[in-house]
């Protein structure tokens, strides 16, 4: 039973990270129907910036939680800036182009950013300092759930609540929902659609950066390629839950996390990724709109 709980919590941790990244995909897709392929790279850049900032801070004498906070804030700022720039350069000129064009542009951007980090930094895995301290009160349950997992779960939970509040309660959120429903109509009633799209990218990137910092300090290493697989997995999660739906992304992330965790634990850890993609194919065949997504009727 302990093993089961361990796998369950492992899946939950992993799933909540997927959910954080998946939110970026889902929000962007909801508004401009584009798979932002470079989203995984934003996550990776977030992790890298955190690593660099944490490294510099440690060398210049900062210690403890302050390093974590500075690094996380820097990662969020930079990832948002990258997301904003990415949209401006690679996607905005292509608005109104055939659907394949922005998708290919996104793939190009993903390859570009990967190699940019590879050339600017290093092709090797860099050790990431474990920024999350061990809490004493976690001692009794440490064999099932560690402090980093707890921090990840709490951070994700809080972030999700904040995001939901932002979208449901604020004026900006209302503008986002309006743009999602009908971009032209939103423009007519005075929503600055371009700014809403930029904002969506910024928020999505910030969430990805939070995910990046958490994962990197949990796993303990970073390289230029981590964004790719994470991005694909998170996209799987977004599709699983129903792309465009925010609760769907969370649910999809958790389901994917549990699937991987249990499959790795009970069947074989070599084929972990195969299960993830198998699940994706299965969902798409049986329920293309995803678990919580609404199936859109195509009108001519």
């Amino acid at each position, binding site marked *: 039973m302990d093993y089961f709980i361990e796998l369950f919590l492992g899946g939950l941790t992993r799933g909540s990270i997927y959910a954080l990244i998946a939110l970026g995909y889902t929000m962007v897709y909801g508004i401009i129907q584009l798979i932002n392929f470079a989203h995984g790279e934003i996550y990776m850049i977030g992790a890298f910036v955190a690593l660099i900032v944490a490294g510099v801070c440690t060398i210049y004498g900062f210690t403890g939680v302050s390093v974590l906070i500075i690094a996380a804030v820097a990662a969020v700022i930079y990832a948002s800036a990258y997301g904003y720039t990415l949209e401006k350069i690679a996607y905005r000129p292509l608005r109104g182009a055939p659907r394949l064009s922005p998708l290919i542009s996104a793939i*190009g951007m993903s390859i570009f950013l990967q190699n940019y980090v590879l050339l600017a930094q290093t092709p090797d895995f*860099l050790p990431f300092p474990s920024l999350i301290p061990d809490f004493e009160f976690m001692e009794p349950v440490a064999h099932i759930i560690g402090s980093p997992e707890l921090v990840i779960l709490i951070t994700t939970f809080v972030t999700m609540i904040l995001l939901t509040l932002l979208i449901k309660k604020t004026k900006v959120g209302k503008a986002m929902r309006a743009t999602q429903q009908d971009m032209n109509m939103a423009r007519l009633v005075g929503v600055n659609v371009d700014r809403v799209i930029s904002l969506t990218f910024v928020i999505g990137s910030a969430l990805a950066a939070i995910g990046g910092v958490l994962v990197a300090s949990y796993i303990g290493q970073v390289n230029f390629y981590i964004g790719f697989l994470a991005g694909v997995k998170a996209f799987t999660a977004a599709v699983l839950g129903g792309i465009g739906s925010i609760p769907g992304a969370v649910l999809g992330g958790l389901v994917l996390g549990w699937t991987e965790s249990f499959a790795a634990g009970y069947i074989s850890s070599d084929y972990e990724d195969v299960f993830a993609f*198998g699940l994706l194919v299965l969902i798409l065949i049986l329920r293309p709109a995803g678990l919580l997504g609404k199936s859109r009727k195509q009108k001519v």
Partner: protein
Amino acid sequence: MTDMLKEFKQSILISLWFVFLTFPLMVVRVNTTESLVEWRWMNMVWVALGSFILSYLWRYMLARQQARKKVADSGLEKQSKVTLLLEDATFRYRAMAVLLVLALIFPLAFDTYQSTIMISALIYVVLGLGLNITVGLAGLLDLGYVAFFAVGAYSYALLNHHFDLGFWTVLPLGGILGCLFGIILGFPILRLRGDYLAIVTLGFGMIVKIVLENWSDFSFGPSGIAQIDRPGLFGIDMDLAGSTIYIYYIMIAMVVFTILVTMRLRNSRIGRAWIALREDEIACVAMGIDMARTKLSAYALGAFWAGMVGVLFAAKTTFINPASFTFMESAIILSIVVLGGMGSILGVILGAFILILLPEYMRAFSEYRMLAFGAAMVLMMIFRPQGIISNIRQKYEYKGLQKETDNG
């Protein structure tokens, strides 16, 4: 004057923004094990200068793009000289003949090393043309194309290893196996549209690689399969140089075969159905085209070439392992198709040569290869979505009327 000042100001701001953006990644490098921070201030200067100049170029290109769009909208667009030349049938045949002769004497004029490079470029030509069917003609974005390549390569390697089957026996078999995998992958995703398709094919490509890496009893795992037989020629023993030239000629034959088949396919009933499907799926189905069959055939035929050329790849390198079949390969093949011009045969061939030979001959820049590919994909989509050479559609013109007006 104020315009110039405004532009200057804007460029300064852009350049400052990029300095900010690239600061932690380009300037700082931390060595955590030795607690050293390396500051690379020179990079900052480069970024500032580069982005300043590029922002001017970017604005100029965007303005030109807009102007061109206006011309296109007014319907007064002139065809470029290259397109006109290419539409001329006699010129086309002559050019082809010259190229073919050049291709045939190539290995005799240059050494083995050059031939080897040429073979790999030709392999990518065939791969590009195959993917061109799926992506360029039918408009189905396939991000796991390299999986079919792997199927072909592994089918030859395994059949050769276990049953001692020869190259020529397996060559069609590899193609057919590729085809089969195309259909297997095609069935579940028939119902999906554009972007979902991309992600499922990506997943499929990764599944194939993971299986090859982990199922050691079947595929010998990450260590791969060595000592695969080179293609035979009636049992004649050949040295390395001889067999390289031999493979080169096989490859030329394959390229010619591929070009002929894809050219005929494009103008056939099924080719037109693909193009119609790409342009508008709903209208296409309403016109009575069987969507399932058309899509499946696009996948199957695209995969066929990958499977076949995979066999040749295994025979050429005599050693394969899963590391040759990563997503990056799929991305390279895709960028060949995109940069060359989706749907255009000549464009894809040119794209393959540029993308494969350029980094090969400019070794100093080969690190920057993927960086340039990525950037080129983005820029191409924005400034020249039709690729280097745009697809020339066969046109039927009514010539009678012209004569009448001449007479009258």
